[in-house]
C-alpha cells in the first residue's frame, strides 16, 4: 500500500462508502417495495471491487454478475444512472431495460452484469483473447461468486484461457454462500484457488475484507496479464451481508458467523489501517462518507422522479438492423 498517495486513498474510501450507502438504500427501497424485481446487494464485499477495478484502465474489460452494483460504482459509473436503472427509468445506464442485474457501461470497460451464474467468464476470456489478437495492451477481469465453479462455463472459460494464454484475471468473490448453500458444503475442493491447477492457472486466496490485500494481489495479476504472463485467479474471501436477494430471510446464517465477519468489516478495516499508519484523519474520512451518503440520497431521489421509458422501447434494440 506504499504506492498509494492521499488522494488515491481517499478515492478508494469514497468508492467503498458510496457502495455501502447505495446498497443500504437499495435494501430500504426493496423493503418499501418502491422498486419491483430482484435486487442483490454487494454490502460486505466492497473491498473486492474497490481493490481491483480502480487499478484497471478504462480500456480494460470486465464482466460482472447479477450482484453488480458495487462493480459499477467502483468503475465510477454515475450513481444516478445506476439508481435509475434499478427503478427502470429511461435515464438508467441501460435505459431501464436491463434493471439491477444488467448494469453495464462498455465505454468504461464494464461489459456488464450477467444474470446467469458463470455466464461472464467465457465472455471476459473472449475479450482478453481479442486484445491479444489485435495486439492491444488490454486485460479483462471476470467477477463471479463461489457458486459459479460448478458450472461448465467456469471450467470451459479457464480451459480456453489456459489453452490460449488469454490476459484475463478470474476473480472469485467467495462470500461463503451460493444462494443459500454454504461453501463448506458445496465446494468439494475446499478452496476455489485449489481448483485451477488442472488448467495450469496460477491462483491465490486472499483476505477479501482488506482492500489493500486485494489491491496487492490484483496489481500482480494485472501485471502478469499485461506483460504476457497469461491468466490467473484470485479467490477473495469475503462475506455477503445481505441475503441472496433482498427479501431472503437468511435463516441459514449462524449468528456467530455474521458477527465474526462483521468484526472484519472492510470499511472499519480501512479506517483502522489508515489511522494506524497515520495516512488519513478520521475527519477526512467522515467528510467523504457524509458526502457519499448525500450523493446517494440525491441519486435515488432523482432516479425515483425520472421518466419511464417510452413504450416504443419494448421492441427497440433487439437487433442493430432487422
Amino acid at each position, binding site marked *: 500500500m506504499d504506492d498509494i498517495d492521499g488522494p488515491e486513498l481517499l478515492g478508494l474510501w469514497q468508492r467503498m462508502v458510496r457502495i455501502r450507502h447505495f446498497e443500504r438504500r437499495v435494501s430500504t427501497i426493496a423493503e418499501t417495495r418502491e422498486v419491483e424485481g430482484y435486487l442483490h446487494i454487494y454490502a460486505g464485499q466492497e473491498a473486492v471491487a474497490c481493490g481491483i477495478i480502480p487499478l484497471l484502465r478504462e480500456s480494460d474489460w470486465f464482466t460482472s454478475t447479477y450482484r453488480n452494483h458495487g462493480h459499477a460504482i467502483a468503475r465510477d459509473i454515475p450513481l444516478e444512472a445506476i439508481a435509475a436503472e434499478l427503478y427502470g427509468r429511461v435515464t438508467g445506464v*441501460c435505459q431501464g431495460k436491463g434493471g439491477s442485474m444488467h448494469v453495464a457501461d462498455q465505454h468504461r470497460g464494464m461489459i456488464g452484469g450477467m444474470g446467469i451464474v458463470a455466464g461472464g467468464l*467465457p465472455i471476459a476470456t*473472449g475479450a482478453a483473447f481479442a486484445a491479444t489478437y*489485435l495486439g492491444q495492451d488490454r486485460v479483462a477481469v471476470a467477477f463471479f461468486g463461489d457458486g459459479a465453479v460448478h458450472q*461448465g462455463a467456469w471450467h470451459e*472459460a479457464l480451459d480456453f484461457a489456459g489453452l490460449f494464454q488469454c490476459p484475463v484475471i478470474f476473480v472469485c468473490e467467495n462470500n461463503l454462500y451460493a444462494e443459500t448453500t454454504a461453501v463448506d458444503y458445496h465446494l468439494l475442493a475446499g478452496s476455489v484457488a485449489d481448483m485451477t491447477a488442472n488448467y495450469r492457472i496460477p491462483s491465490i486466496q486472499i483476505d477479501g475484507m482488506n482492500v489493500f490485500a486485494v489491491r496487492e494481489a490484483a496489481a500482480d495479476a494485472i501485471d502478469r496479464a499485461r506483460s504476457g504472463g497469461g491468466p490467473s485467479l484470485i479467490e477473495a474471501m469475503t462475506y455477503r451481508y445481505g441475503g441472496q436477494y433482498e427479501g431472503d430471510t437468511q435463516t441459514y446464517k449462524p449468528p456467530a458467523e455474521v458477527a465474526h465477519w462483521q468484526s472484519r468489516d472492510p470499511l472499519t478495516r480501512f479506517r483502522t489501517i489508515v489511522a494506524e499508519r497515520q495516512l488519513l484523519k478520521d475527519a477526512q474520512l467522515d467528510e467523504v462518507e457524509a458526502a457519499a451518503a448525500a450523493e446517494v440520497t440525491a441519486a435515488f431521489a432523482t432516479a425515483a422522479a425520472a421518466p419511464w421509458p417510452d413504450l416504443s422501447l419494448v421492441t427497440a434494440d433487439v437487433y*442493430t438492423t432487422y
Partner: protein
Amino acid sequence: MRKLSIKDAINEALRQEMEADERVLLFGEDIAGGAGRDEIYPEAADAWGGPFGVTKGLLAQFGRRRVVDTAVAETGFIGASIGAAIAGLRPIAEIMYIDFIGTSFDQLLNHAAKLRYVYGGKVSVPIVVRTVAGAGYRAAAEHSQALYSLYTHVPGLKVVAPATAYDAKGLLIAAIRDPDPVVFIEHKRLYMYEDDVPEEPYTIPLGSARIYREGHDATLVGIQKMVHTAVDAAKLLADEGINCEVIDPRSYSPLDTTTILASVRKTGRLVIVDESHPRCSLATDIAALVAEDAFDALRAPIRRVTGAHAPVPFSPPLEDAYLPSVDRVADAVRSLMTKPVASRA
C-alpha cells in the same frame, strides 16, 4: 458461370471475408485438424477442415492464429466469441452439429441474443455461429436434428439456412458483415449440391425469400433441403395440371412474410414442407402467419408436411419414412385441390 458446391461456396465466402477483414477469424472443433502435431506431422495439419471438409484449406492461407482449433468445449468458445465480438473482432464459431447446441445454448440464448437489448442498445454482438442440421445421413438421433425453430424463437438472434450454393455464399457474407448474432445453418445432405456461383463477393439481404418456381394453384414453402423436395413435387404435379409456386424463405429470422403472404393471396392454398418435428416448428409458425394475415384468401386448409414427432431413427427405412417425401408433399397438395372451395358471400 462456374458451378460450385455449397461446401465450396461456404469455403470461398469464408476465405474472401477473411482476406478482406483481419477481424474475421474462425473458432471451432477440428475446423483445421491436427492441432498440436504441426511440427512432427506438418501434413496432418488441416487433416479435417471440419467433419465435412468445409473449412479445409483455410489453415494454409491464414494460419492457426485465425483458424483456431479449440477444445471440445462449445460454451467456452461460443462465450469467447461473444466477448471477442464486443472487443472488436468478427468471430465465426462452428458448432459441429446443430444437435450439440445443448452444450452451449446458454451463451447464445442468454448472452449473445440479449446483451444489446438489456444494455440499452449500447453494444452489439457481431458473431456468426455456423452449424450443420438435417437428417438423411444415417447419423441417428443426436447428429440429425433440424432445430431451426429453437433459434428462430429467440429475439436477438438472426437465423439463415441456404439451400443452394449461390444462396450459401451470398447469405454467409451478409451474415459475417451483419452487426448482430447470426446462426448460419448448413445442411449435411446439401453440401455437394451445385449451382452457379459468381467468383466475386456478393451479399443476399437477410430476410429475403427466394421464389423457385411460379404457379397459381398452390404455394409450397420449403424449409432448407425440403425446398428441393417441394420443387420435385411441383414438377410431378405440373404433369397433372396443378401449378405450384415454390418458395424458400432462406432466412427464418427475419422472415420475408411479404413474399409468403403475396403468394398465398395469389394461390389460395398453402403447404409447408419442413423436416423438423411438427410442434412449434417453422411450419407451424408460417401456418399461423398465413391463418392470421391471409385467412380470407385461403381456399383450403393449410397443410404441413413435416418430420415425425419422434427422434430421428437410425435404421435406414425408418429414417426415410421419418422424412417428408416428394409423394407426401404431392399428396398433400392433391388433397387441397379436391377440397370444396368455401362459398363466399
